[in-house]
């Protein structure tokens, strides 16, 4: 009986040891999961400021976090309809906004330029024939100052285009260009003149000249006896 009791006691003690072992394993697993979750959380937290800075970058919302520069293009929501050969004026305003980070005497210089994209052909337009002055050099603009910019653009080819104005800062070579919102432009084809106007002249003048010189030649020939 005693022996049986010992056996039972020894079995109970073994069970308790096993259960203790199992509890420790659960705790270890929990701790590991907690550590992983914590590291993921910390990683996410470290990414948020970067994401925010990316979202507030000048390339996305036309204003620089460091410089507080902004370009406003006139009539951004309007679609311009014009004929080929006509001139349009693109007006924009470059603002250097005052904020807490900028001192009152801080200035920025750079180049403002227009970009025209052919929407139909999906290519940027070579501005050789479109605008005499593609870029405007701005030596300096002070904080709180606003500078009007103007381009005269000649519409060379019919099609659908978007126009935007960009600004590249001089001092910071790695800064993203500041971009304005876009203007939509629809250029309709144009026939300068009715070709029918030119046809009578194009065919008529040589025909009249042939007639005049033919008659003169005949009269002269008749006088000299060539034609009897």
């Amino acid at each position, binding site marked *: 009986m005693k022996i049986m009791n010992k056996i039972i006691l020894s079995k109970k003690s073994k069970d308790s040891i096993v259960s203790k072992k199992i509890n420790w394993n659960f705790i270890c697993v929990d701790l590991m999961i907690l550590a992983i979750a914590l590291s993921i959380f910390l990683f996410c937290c470290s990414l948020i400021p970067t994401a925010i800075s990316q979202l507030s970058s000048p390339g996305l919302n036309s204003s620089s976090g460091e410089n507080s520069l902004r370009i406003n293009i006139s009539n951004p929501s309007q679609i311009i309809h014009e004929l080929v*050969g006509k001139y349009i004026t693109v007006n924009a305003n470059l603002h250097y906004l005052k904020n807490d980070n900028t001192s009152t005497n801080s200035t920025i210089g750079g180049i403002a330029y227009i970009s025209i994209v052919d929407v139909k052909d999906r290519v940027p337009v070579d501005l050789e024939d479109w605008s005499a002055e593609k870029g405007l050099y701005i030596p300096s603009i002070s904080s709180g100052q606003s500078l009007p910019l103007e381009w005269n653009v*000649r519409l060379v080819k019919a099609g659908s285009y978007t126009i935007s104005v960009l600004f590249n800062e001089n001092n910071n070579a790695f800064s993203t260009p500041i971009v304005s919102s876009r203007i939509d432009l629809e250029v309709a084809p144009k026939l*300068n003149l009715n070709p029918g106007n030119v*046809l009578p002249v194009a065919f008529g*003048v040589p025909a009249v*000249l042939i007639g005049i*010189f033919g008659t003169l030649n005949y009269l002269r020939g008749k006088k000299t006896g060539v034609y009897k």
Partner: protein
Amino acid sequence: MVDLIIYKLETSSSFYSWRGAAWIITAASIFSLVAYLLLTDKELSLLDQGEMLFTFSVVILVLGLLMSGINSSSSISAEIEAGTFECLLLTPIKHIQIAIQKMLSTVTIWIVLYLISIPYIIVLSNGTNLAISAILYVGLYGTLLSIAISSISIALSWMLKTSKNSIMVALMIILLLSAPSLFFATSLRKTDFGNMLENINPFSHSINSLDSVLVDNQQTVYEQFPHIWPVLVFTIICSIIFLTFTRKFEVKML
């Protein structure tokens, strides 16, 4: 009263026969082709009307210069080669008058060419205020350059005494004058060298002036005077060379 017998003979040979008048028909056909292409070609018709008129005006000037140069550079040498120059010198006409009448006959060719081009200018400038300016400025520059080129070509014709050489040299002079405006790229024309060439070249001044009048709409004489006076000076210099070399034709040199 100066007897214009040589002028009449020279002019009648240019207009009075089929062979003589062939150049007029050819020139009118060239004008017709250029005007028709400018107005109906898919891409050329997109040009601004001022640009069209400018292109056409350049064609008129170049054609006028070529015709003046070629016609006058063979005027004396052709007589020498044909053996008729001595007979011409025996006539009671002063040597300088012979040269001047030959020059006037060349300028008449230019005037006829210019008159033929007027209907085309009017059609191309339809609907703009450029017609009268285009006609007047093309007439002004064309006449001045035609006088200048004719003068220097007749002097060359007398000095070189062979038509082949004098025509070649005259063509080289016309090419030299027109090269900066017609053949040089815009980037080269903007360099110091290009600027210098454009400033001393009367043909470039004429082209730049027409560009300014027809494309930039700067039509007043006051605005164009910086371009007009170099062409005027060039014409005066060429006339002085002409008068110096054609004052006396020496028969013994033949």
